């Protein structure tokens, strides 16, 4: 039988298999998003971009969203990296327990987790109780309905997204490299900075990218834990669409948010490539 014909048939078969999913994504994902972009560029709508840029409030909101996303990402990185190192050193049973503890909050509804944080940070919640009992404060203070509450809750929600890619890259490292580094006279610190960190940098960047991108679009936490004091882009878009029925402005803000997310995503992708190249250079010299 003709081998080339068979190969073409196999390719056609594979194409037929992927096409239903691609059709759905095309019609109900890429098309509406492209449509949204084009609508914001039509006629009077284009003026909305100028309004967004010249308005102090909306620029402030964009800046605020970015700032919160960066804080959450940095805190999560500081929490997740040591935890990933610890988990990768555990026995199989220990790992199973650790994953159980990480996946349960990840799979629990965001609304449930947000509510849990409202209880935790409430005026008569456990944190206030403990602080009063310790004598740190005299009377319960306002912890919820603040930026602190939003950042704390987001840090909790995003932590698994940071941890899992970092753990993946650390667990793939060949452990004999650590012995080799030790054999060559490297101390704990230089083994960490020159073996562990360079070999896990891809996982770190994947985690950073995921947490940044997800944090930029976050809605539930600022809406419920912010108490109206923590303006972020997603809330602004919902307000324009839901309360003011200004769908054109909601569309423009969405397009700007989308562009910010894409830029963030691409910058980190570029950085990852740079690091991979840099490592090859170090190895060859």
């Amino acid at each position, binding site marked *: 039988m003709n081998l080339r014909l068979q190969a073409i048939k196999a390719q056609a078969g*594979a194409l037929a298999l992927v096409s239903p999913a691609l059709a759905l994504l095309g019609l109900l994902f890429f098309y509406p998003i492209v449509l949204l972009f084009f609508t914001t560029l039509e006629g009077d709508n284009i003026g909305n971009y100028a309004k967004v840029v010249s308005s102090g409030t909306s620029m402030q909101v964009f800046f605020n969203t970015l700032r919160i996303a960066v804080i959450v990402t940095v805190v999560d990185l500081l929490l997740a990296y040591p935890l990933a190192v610890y988990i990768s050193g555990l026995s199989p049973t220990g790992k199973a327990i650790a994953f159980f503890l990480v996946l349960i909050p990840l799979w629990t*509804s965001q609304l449930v987790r947000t509510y*849990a944080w409202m209880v935790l940070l409430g005026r008569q919640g456990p944190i206030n109780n403990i602080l009063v009992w310790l004598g740190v404060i005299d009377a319960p203070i306002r912890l919820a309905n603040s930026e602190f509450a939003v950042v704390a809750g987001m840090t909790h929600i995003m*932590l698994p997204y940071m941890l899992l890619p970092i*753990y993946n890259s650390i667990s793939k490292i060949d*452990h004999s490299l650590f012995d080799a580094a030790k054999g060559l006279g490297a101390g704990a610190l230089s083994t960490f900075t020159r073996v562990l960190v360079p070999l896990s940098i891809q996982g770190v960047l994947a985690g950073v990218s995921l947490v940044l991108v997800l944090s930029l679009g976050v809605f539930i936490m600022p809406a419920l834990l912010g108490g109206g004091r923590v303006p972020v882009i997603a809330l602004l878009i919902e307000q324009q669409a839901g309360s003011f029925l200004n769908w054109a402005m909601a569309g423009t803000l969405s397009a700007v948010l989308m562009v910010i997310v894409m830029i963030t995503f691409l910058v980190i992708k570029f950085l990852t490539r740079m690091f991979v190249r840099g490592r090859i250079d170090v190895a060859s010299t």
Partner: protein
Amino acid sequence: MSHPRSRLKALKWPGKGLLGVFSWLVFIFLVAPLLVVVPISFSGGSYLRFPPDSYSVRWYQTYFGSQSWIDATLLSILVGTVATILSVVLGFLFALGITRGLRRWSGALEKLALAPMIVPSIVYSVSMYSLFAKLGLVGTWYGIALAHTVLCLPFVIIVLAAGLKEYDVDQETAAIGLGASRLVAIRRITIPQIRSSLLSAAFLAFITSFDELVVAMFLSSTFGTLPKRMFDNIRLQIDPTIAAVSVLEIVMIVIAMFVLLRMNKGEASRLA
């Protein structure tokens, strides 16, 4: 053979004990907030006090006795089931396609299919509302189910593509060599072997839809899914009914997790 324990032992640094303490504090940070809702859900009073002054099961009774809570739950189960079935079927075919052929294109296609993960749900909601408003699909349950299918698809594809890459295709080829048609070979040889991946994918798809708030909020008009009902409850009246609902959801997740862990032979990392 590399022993997992020795993996990072070479890193004999003085702070090893400290790392353990730090890590367990982070675990507490991850899990403790969820446990806080348990006593609240059994609270006897109607306001948020921790620990509650008295205990009762009245908030569970409120939930099960309330038509609006039950309607919202049933609607979310309906939407979640339809989105799960659609996304698992489409995702399975897609994963088969990119792992069996299209060698040069499969990487790019997989990335394309994962795009819904990085688009903020508020942006997707505004886009879908504009489209569905034109098509007259706003305010229909199947409109929400279709939008959720798009959001579930990336998770399904990640899990199933990983499962299919591990699976040895030669077994399917052998079955075909022995006279089975490809369809029979896939149904009787391939699917049983990636059953645990299929179940994980279905579970992830279902909770993705079941928990989704923003898209459902934009695309529903008067009725609401369970997350919408929870959101309104937290925003407007915040009584412990929401705590009872939370505890029921957490219990469901823990049970599902035990089942999936057993199916995956205890290898929790495969679920991540």
